[in-house]
């Protein structure tokens, strides 16, 4: 629907030459930017309306005293819809653990929540199509559930830092929201996110368009194709410090897959960008011993790497 308008703009109004690389890159850039921003607005708005029906406090109540397996599955699913920002990771972690949410279940939540987020989903859907977006949700859930189960079995409760405080109250947000409140909240939230990420999106798509037009196809196949076993772990490692730029990273990765980067490698990279974040680790260091943090990162990392190999293997 948008495509003919963009084509008309590029070739008729701007009078750019047909078939030239520059016209194609401009066309690609305009089309992707408009498509992604439309998707971002619509999806973030819908997701934030859904989020108003959930809160970390309600999620905690659902998860407290849930057993392994059921608890891990529930926690991962709730992680998708519960509003959560990594700046609240500490009170959330303590709140969960002290309310009797098992440690492994808490970790399932902590993995799923940042990994499966609306921005990453929109970018994946827009740049790779809905199949890859679903694949990402599915494998993200599996990694979150499995990591939590493994950590739960390791019995590492003693690696949580001790805190000395009075028994926490159980604050439940009281006021009932009207539909208007929910819409207002969603509007505000959508704007907030857009303000934060728009520049990364534009830069990411811009670089992507440049790669799309100027980098020869299969240029990267040698380095990051399916047959290079080292590409997946490397992509995972590189993804760790790139947190919060998922918005800019995904268009870039999309362009790179056209140039020979295998899809499993790309998925692993994007999961590492969202789920393994250095700033969040620094925050979580205040509530868990370094050893637990390393265990947590390693298990999630291994899960991501295995997912990457799996997709490189089955998507041949």
């Amino acid at each position, binding site marked *: 629907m948008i495509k003919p308008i963009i084509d008309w703009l590029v070739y008729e109004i701007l009078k750019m030459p047909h078939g030239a690389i520059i016209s194609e890159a401009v066309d690609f850039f305009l089309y992707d930017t408009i498509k992604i921003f439309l998707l971002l607005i619509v999806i973030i708005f819908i997701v934030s309306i859904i989020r108003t029906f959930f*809160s*970390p*406090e309600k999620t*905690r109540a659902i998860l407290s005293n849930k057993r392994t397996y059921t608890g891990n599955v529930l926690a991962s699913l709730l992680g998708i819809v519960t*509003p*959560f*920002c990594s*700046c*609240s990771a*500490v*009170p*959330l972690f*303590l*709140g*969960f653990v*002290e309310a009797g949410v098992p440690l492994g279940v808490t970790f399932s939540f902590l993995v799923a929540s940042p990994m499966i987020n609306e921005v990453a989903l929109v970018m994946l859907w827009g740049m790779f199509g809905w199949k890859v977006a679903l694949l990402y949700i599915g494998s993200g859930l599996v990694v979150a559930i499995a990591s939590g189960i493994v950590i739960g079995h390791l019995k590492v409760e003693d690696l949580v830092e001790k*805190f*000395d*405080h*009075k*028994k*926490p*109250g*159980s*604050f439940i*947000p009281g006021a009932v929201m009207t539909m208007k409140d929910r819409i207002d909240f969603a509007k505000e939230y959508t704007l907030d996110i857009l303000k934060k990420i728009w520049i990364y999106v534009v830069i990411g798509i811009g670089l992507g368009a440049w790669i799309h037009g100027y980098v020869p196809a299969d240029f990267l196949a040698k380095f990051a194709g399916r047959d290079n076993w080292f590409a997946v772990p490397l992509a995972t490692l590189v993804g760790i410090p790139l947190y919060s730029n998922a918005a800019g990273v995904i268009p870039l990765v999309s362009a790179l897959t056209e140039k020979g980067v295998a899809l499993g490698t790309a998925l692993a990279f994007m999961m590492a960008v969202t789920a393994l974040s250095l700033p969040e680790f620094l925050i979580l260091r*205040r509530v868990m011993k370094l050893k637990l943090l390393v265990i947590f990162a390693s298990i999630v990392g291994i899960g991501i790497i295995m997912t990457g190999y799996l997709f490189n293997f089955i998507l041949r």
Partner: protein
Amino acid sequence: MKIEILGMGCAKCKQLMANAEKAVKDAGVQAEVVKVEDMNQIVGYGIMTTPALVVDGKVLSAGKLLSADEIVKFIGKKGP
């Protein structure tokens, strides 16, 4: 009246602090606005999202950046 802003120094917490101070002025009430950054205390209130607004020891809102007007509704009569 004692108003506490709970938060570990995020941008929204600072903004909520400023909004609360403005709200106190707008409402024309006697109130002391303090920032609580100590995690033990924050967790002690049972909240899991910051910033949170506590008035006289009671949690009124968590995880939300309230505007000055919204805070005025919590702390008393509308301005002069």
